[in-house]
């Protein structure tokens, strides 16, 4: 049994933590939070590229480091802990993973080296309004290789140079790579619950679109891409949840009320114990997801769903109860609790809500039990 990070992976994770402690303190996060003109920290982005993290899982032939997915999970955990204000998930978990899994050789050659070098930011454009996009509701369309339609919201869409866009082609849903710097693309930055991550409306009017994978497979491809991304996002959520527990603990130990530290009151102790329990359930499920992702196991859909459900639950609980433990201070802009509260919502809403993942999980279990 070897169901944990290896020593090398732990070393990588420790180094990542030290790096982010130095390069991404909360002042950096707040630099993006408080400046409506910025949707990410480009200095941190460049530094992360220099570390090789953007190409950690990209093969060496495309100028990546060629590490495994577990290493990427370790990095994700630390990015989540630091609430890093960079489009890492959209670029690495989604665009790079999608192109590696489903792209042609030409697409890999065009996209992956640029991601590894920090020259290309990605995003996933599926949503077209409130609720879930379905084959019958999908409006965006591609005709003669040209895309038209509106995607809203698109996470990191304002920073991205390339989008993966879900659109109909000849009446069948497909997934397309679209160069956002080319003509026929309008980008508008939107306000969101988590200003430390960018969100945009993308309007396409005859933008060039290059299909990824087979025609008619758009929704299947999106699901396959999200299965992979869900595991990595779960590690970001886990990192955030663990940090919330630490912050709540540190604050409670130092806060005195009624003549003693509030960390000694059972109402507080049990709340923190509940956080710990949820975080450990999330960690164990996330590890299983990491294993399934790393070896491309057939169990990936259920493992990814379980990882995402547990991590979403843990981060939401830890972020909201951390505010509560901090009392009035926790409700102020100046204390960092809300950075995590906001990010917990961002990470749960992006890539399909936990409710959708629960339905997916039970559907998979039904298939398995029927077989």
């Amino acid at each position, binding site marked *: *049994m070897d*169901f944990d990070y290896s020593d090398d992976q732990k070393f990588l994770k420790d180094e990542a933590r030290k790096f982010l402690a130095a390069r991404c303190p909360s002042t950096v996060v707040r630099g993006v939070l408080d400046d409506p003109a910025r949707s990410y920290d480009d200095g941190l982005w460049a530094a992360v590229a220099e570390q090789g993290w953007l190409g950690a899982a990209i093969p060496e032939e495309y100028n990546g480091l060629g590490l495994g997915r577990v290493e990427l999970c370790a990095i994700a955990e630390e990015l989540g802990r630091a609430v890093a204000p960079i489009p890492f998930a959209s670029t690495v978990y989604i665009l790079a993973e999608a192109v590696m899994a489903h792209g042609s050789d030409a697409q890999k050659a065009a996209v992956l080296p640029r991601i590894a070098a920090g020259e290309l930011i990605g995003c996933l454009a599926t949503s077209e309004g409130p609720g879930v996009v379905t084959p019958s509701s999908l409006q965006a369309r591609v005709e003669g290789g040209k895309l038209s339609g509106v995607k809203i919201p698109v996470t990191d869409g304002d920073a991205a140079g390339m989008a993966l866009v879900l659109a109909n082609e000849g009446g069948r849903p497909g997934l397309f790579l679209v160069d956002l710097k080319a003509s026929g693309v309008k980008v508008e930055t939107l306000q969101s619950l988590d200003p430390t991550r960018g969100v945009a409306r993308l309007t396409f009017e005859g933008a060039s679109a290059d299909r990824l994978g087979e025609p008619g497979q758009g929704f299947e491809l999106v699901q396959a891409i999200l299965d992979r991304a869900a595991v990595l996002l779960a590690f970001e959520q886990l990192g955030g949840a663990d940090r919330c527990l630490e912050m709540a603990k540190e604050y409670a130990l130092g806060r005195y009320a009624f003549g003693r530290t509030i*960390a000694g009151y*059972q109402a507080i*102790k049990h709340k923190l114990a509940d956080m710990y329990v949820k975080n450990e359930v999330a960690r*164990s*499920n996330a590890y299983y997801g990491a294993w399934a992702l790393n070896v491309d196991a057939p169990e990936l859909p259920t493992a990814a769903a*379980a990882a995402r*459900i547990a991590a979403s639950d843990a981060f939401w609980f830890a972020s909201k109860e951390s505010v509560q433990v901090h009392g009035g201070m926790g409700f102020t802009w100046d204390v960092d609790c809300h950075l995590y509260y906001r990010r917990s919502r961002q990470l749960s809403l992006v890539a399909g809500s936990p409710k959708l993942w*629960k339905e997916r999980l039970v559907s998979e279990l039904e298939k398995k039990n029927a077989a």
Partner: protein
Amino acid sequence: MDFNDSPEEAAYREKARAWLAENAAAHRAEHGDPKPTTPEHMAAGKAWQARKAAAGYACITWPAAIGGAGGTPIQSVIFGQEEAKAGVSYGYFTIGLGMCVPTVMAFANDDTKKRFVSPAVKGEEIWCQLFSEPAGGSDVAALRTRAVKDGDDWVINGQKVWTTGAHYCDYGILLVRTDPDVPKHKGLTMFWIDMRDAAVECRPIHQMSGGREFNEVYFTDLRVKDSQRLGEVGQGWQVALVTLMNERLAVGGSAGPDYRQVMELARGLSGANGPALKDQAFREKLADWYVNSQGLKFTRFRTMTALSRGQTPGPESSIGKIISANQLQDLANTAVEAQGEYGILTDPALAPMEAAFQQSLMWAPGLRIAGGTDEILKNIIAERVLGLPGDVRVDKDVAFKDMPTGR
């Protein structure tokens, strides 16, 4: 990150499997498959334990000189997994060999060790642990059973409760109060006792679940020799902590129905709007149970990984019972409610899955209390794992006899 045995572990597993295949078959041929709680079941358990002891599988991590095999914790876990798969596990010896006998080994004189360790390993004698009392459950150190020195003897009077297996055990370790004039933790002493002594009386407890698996144990002028003392007079609390530390690593799964059984049930049940399995609220619960069950399973794998690497496992296994006991209660209740009015029936011939959900519903409250209540377990996580301060102890410097007692 994988689930594979190391080459050494795989070799050990292979050896254990081969031994189990041969010996489980021979054991079954001899003893059949007796029903739990019958004398035949007990006899079969003792025979299986003797068979394991002869082959070095009884107390794998103990030194060979005292009947063990000098093995590693991961070997013990691997054997336990394979033994469970072979379907020949008996629970009679867990408390004795996991907690009581290690305490005897740590604190008794050589003669006592020589007398008791070997018969316990071979399953000839079974031990129980006599700590909890009506006035001391979560707060064990508040116990009132009194031992008074009389020459070279001690005379014991009082009552223990929730003692697992007291009615079939041969010996027990007993925590008593020897000095009520000092604060509660300082006036305790540990003894080993003969459970067959006429001054020891076991009475089964009628549980809310209807069963009688646990006991009250009464002591009326029970005389024990001073040589039966384990540790110094007044050091009983420290001895008890050693007992509790020896609690076996909880790497086993939990019993009772899980999400699979509820899914199976819901497939065949009709709700207000079609099959119960298609009900959205029900499906969300199902997903949560699955995620928690997987969470516990993979947490056990993390513990095993630490053992496999020769490390001390982290505190993550402390989450196990809080989740499993609460989940069993929720799952059982949901399954019973899904049956509609029919859910009230408890006849195994009528109720789905032989009334497993109804039984679990009535058993789960006990699980949430036994071996540490939800609340105590959360205190333990908060204090030992997270390092938060203990509660204010109003009884810390008060002589036991002056402590307020309530009911």
